[in-house]
């Protein structure tokens, strides 16, 4: 009856005990050893009297490039940049501690970005995933950006697989949930969003080494979201608030965008643009950097049609220069209490 045993050569050596094969009485799910990001290169533990050069560590990871790009491409946001530097410092020190064999539990890296629209939350999240990847806390460093639609299903039993699929896609990187407060609808207790939140919480707690979750949304709405979901709030270590841009910062952002698009202001246009921003800022539905971008897009349109109407030939200078007229024709200047031309066409 006894069939021939294993073929020669297929015996399992005793040293390979970590087999992924399920055996009765052993929980193979737990046998996947969580990778410590610092010890995977097989470094030996340093003696207690050794010295570690933190600045060298820092240079090796290349996060300075991230900071530099952050400083150059993102105007303002001083508190945000400071917080990111602090997080980076903590992670670097943790790495150094691990080299001495000091116990370092993996820090909780889940974050919450609050702020008005157009304050750079998504952009910072992309940079953050890059930084965490360079520091070795994320294996892949990609960013999966989702909203309620991607997580919550339409009928019973649809939500869990949908959320899990998104989570699987985000493994090794950052899961960025935009407008996260929509996940919870207090007026409907049978809303499937709650189910999605529960799965998220479970993964945020148990698979911390696999992904980082970043929630984003308006400050007041996120506050009520957290008030209704205390479990979510306690699992997020970093609450970072993105301040609104000042007029000067908006101006700088505008210039930066113009430079990237290959345009420039004429001398008077620069003053007009500033004046435009000043007026636009106080109007409803002002979306910070996004409104600046829209304003420039519209100015480009007017610039283009202005050039088409002239019969003269145009030179390079005219093609790249925006004049005050391109901005002055905006509705922002026409009526003080209008909607502004930069955000949609609806007029009150």
């Amino acid at each position: 009856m006894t069939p021939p045993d294993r073929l020669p050569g297929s015996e399992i050596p005793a040293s390979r005990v970590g087999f992924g094969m399920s055996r009765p009485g052993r929980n193979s799910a737990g046998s996947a050893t969580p990778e410590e990001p610092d010890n995977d290169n097989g470094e030996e533990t340093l003696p207690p009297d050794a010295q570690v050069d933190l600045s060298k560590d820092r240079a090796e990871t290349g996060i300075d490039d991230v900071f530099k790009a952050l400083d150059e491409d993102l105007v303002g946001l001083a508190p945000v940049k400071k917080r990111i530097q602090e997080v980076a410092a903590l992670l670097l020190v943790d790495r150094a501690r691990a080299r001495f064999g000091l116990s370092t539990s993996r820090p909780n890296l889940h974050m919450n970005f609050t702020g008005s629209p157009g304050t750079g939350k998504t952009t910072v999240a992309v940079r953050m995933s890059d930084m965490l990847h360079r520091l070795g806390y994320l294996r892949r460093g990609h960013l999966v950006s989702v909203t309620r639609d991607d997580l919550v299903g339409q009928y019973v039993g649809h939500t869990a697989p949908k959320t899990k699929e998104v989570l699987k896609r985000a493994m090794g990187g950052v899961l960025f949930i935009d407008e996260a407060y929509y996940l919870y609808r207090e007026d409907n207790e049978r809303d499937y969003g709650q189910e999605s939140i529960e799965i998220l919480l479970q993964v945020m707690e148990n698979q911390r080494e696999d992904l980082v979750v970043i929630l984003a949304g308006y400050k007041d709405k996120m506050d009520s979201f957290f008030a209704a979901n205390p479990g979510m709030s306690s699992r997020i270590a970093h609450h970072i608030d993105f301040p609104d841009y000042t007029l000067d910062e908006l101006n700088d952002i505008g210039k930066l965008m113009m430079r990237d698009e290959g345009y420039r202001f004429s001398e008077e246009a620069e003053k007009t643009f500033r004046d435009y921003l000043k007026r636009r800022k106080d109007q409803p539905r002002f979306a910070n950097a996004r409104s600046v971008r829209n304003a420039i897009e519209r100015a480009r349109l007017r610039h283009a049609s202005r050039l088409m109407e002239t019969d003269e030939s145009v030179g390079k200078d005219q093609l790249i220069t925006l004049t005050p007229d391109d901005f002055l024709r905006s509705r922002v200047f026409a009526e003080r209490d209008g909607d502004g031309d930069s955000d949609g066409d609806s007029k009150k």
Partner: protein
Amino acid sequence: MHITQGTFSYLPELTDDEIRKQIQYALDNGWACSVEFTDDPHPRNVYWEMWGLPMFDLEDAAGVLAEVNECRKAKPEHYIKLNAYDASYGKQTTALSFIVARPSEEPGFRLDRQEWHDRTIRYTLHPYVAEKPHGERYNGQK
């Protein structure tokens, strides 16, 4: 009888860490991974049951490995294999397939001989576990 099948059939069992690396290799090649299980050990059994849908657009092996572990938990004492599908034009086939879990005891096969006309002998493989109904094989673990 230790049943072998697939890409690494000639190697000792892969550890979880090795499985993770193989999954990562598949994902780096853009292959979609899927998990399948069965309790019918016959070598000609090609219809394994799917554990969930194939996983597309994944970056990191952790997601696939989590599904493998889920399947191991839900289907102990089963054969579980991992497939990686190459969807690129001209391939469109399974690029990688290997067993990631197996029952603790594998009774093996009986060779049946059928005497046929003209002293012909016809052979067939009969898995011992196939005597029990589907779902009750291998220590009755479902």
